[in-house]
């Protein structure tokens, strides 16, 4: 259950997170690694690791080196370091991202994971699914489904107190996964 009564049509991020966690509870393997895609997915993976039962190692992935728009857009500034503090080969992994759109970031993240080893399984958890897929990729767990105009980006922000909030911005160009 999420509220969608805001003027921009977006759900409250905290409500969507609670919904996402409810769907994952009991379905996700108790030892699954939660791998957040920078930066929004990283915050969500940390939160989910605290909420979900079991011991979930948290990893971080920056897909900049695997993006398919590098030859058009170049390398963006401030690429973060991918950190996977567990053996990827033979592990069960849940990729976590804030907004699922074209599916291209997820494709890049899956490619990167396989350069670390062969996981037993990869699932996908997203805070919001806005549709608009350009690749055959579907999420395993979804917090909320939304519909916004194509020229707008949905951005997850984290306040100083840790509270998460979704906003829409005019297309920034560099992102969109």
């Amino acid at each position: 259950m999420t509220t969608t009564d805001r003027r921009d049509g977006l759900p409250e991020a905290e409500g969507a997170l609670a919904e996402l966690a409810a769907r994952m509870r009991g379905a996700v393997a108790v030892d699954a690694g939660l791998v957040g895609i920078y930066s929004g997915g990283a915050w969500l993976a940390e939160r989910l690791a605290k909420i979900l039962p079991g011991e979930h190692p948290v990893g971080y992935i920056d897909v900049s080196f695997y993006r398919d728009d590098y030859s058009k857009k170049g390398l963006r500034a401030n690429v973060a370091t991918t950190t996977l503090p567990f053996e990827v080969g033979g592990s069960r992994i849940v990729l976590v991202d804030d907004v699922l759109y074209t599916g291209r970031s997820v494709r890049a993240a899956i490619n990167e994971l396989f350069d670390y080893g062969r996981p037993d399984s990869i699932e996908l958890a997203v805070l919001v699914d806005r549709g608009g897929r350009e690749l055959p990729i579907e999420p395993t767990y979804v917090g909320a489904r939304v519909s916004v105009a194509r020229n707008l980006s949905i951005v997850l922000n984290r306040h100083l107190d840790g509270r998460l909030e979704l906003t829409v911005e005019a297309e920034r160009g560099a992102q969109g996964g």
Partner: protein
Amino acid sequence: MRKVANPQLNDKGELTHLLTLEGLPGEVIGRILDTAVPFVSIAERDVKKVPLLRGKTVFNLFFENSTRTRTTFEIAAKRLSADVINLNIGVSSTSKGETLLDTIDNLVAMNADMFVVRHGESGAPHLIARHLSAAGRPGIHVINAGDGRHQHPTQGLLDLFTIRHYKRDFGGLTVAIVGDLLHSRVARSLIHGLTTLGTPEVRAIGPQTLLPAAVESLGVHVYHDMAQGLRGADVIVMLRLQSERMKGALLPSPGEYFKHYGLTQDKLALAKPDAIVMHPGPMNRGVEIDSAVADGKHSVILPQVTFGIAVRMAVMSMLAGT
């Protein structure tokens, strides 16, 4: 005032060639160092490769021998998934009379995407970059891997990366560069980088005969007495005594040199207790550096080599993305 065109930057201000650290804006240097950070960990993975330069062809053009620099560029390009061709031109075309730019044109006709150039003449990489620009080939990039006595920008960048890795920040640092600055393009690149990033105290230590006449104009304090110059240093950069570049008798003997300018444990003790010792390699043990120091706990000489690959990957992927 009209902006002076910097041949390294495109009209959007992005780095498109890396020719020199002189005049390169601090934010561009900072961005290269930042970008190198995530490349360091790629060496620790199962698959030590990322697909950024897949399908690109990188030519290592070495008109002067340098096994180490060529190898690190080759590894960097391969870890970016590029195809790498090594050409030791000193022993091929030019000996048959082909000019530098004819060589370049031939390689462009083979669909080269990037040239890594080491040349004995200062300015050779600039010449190639200008030639490519005049030929309307903005998609082909040039990296200077050392030109004459001029610059060796990726070595300067890896030195800066190493210093930042261990010391976090350049503000407040005292950096002492010791030895043969006269023949050292490494020193020249590093000094430009250090001053651009706001290092308050850069020192040049060496005999009069091995310091360039105008080194003080680069913002460097000169010391002929090593003990004085090392006092309170956070970073000590030892330079190789480039005996193969020495023409005329600039030095009495290697033994005499070591006595005055070789880094020993005793001299190192004059620097800060947490000082780091760097050397661009290859080292002459017992000439500019004592083995006990080279292998000691202050030495970061081998991490420099590892970081050098990450820095070169960062430069290549930034250039190829423009």
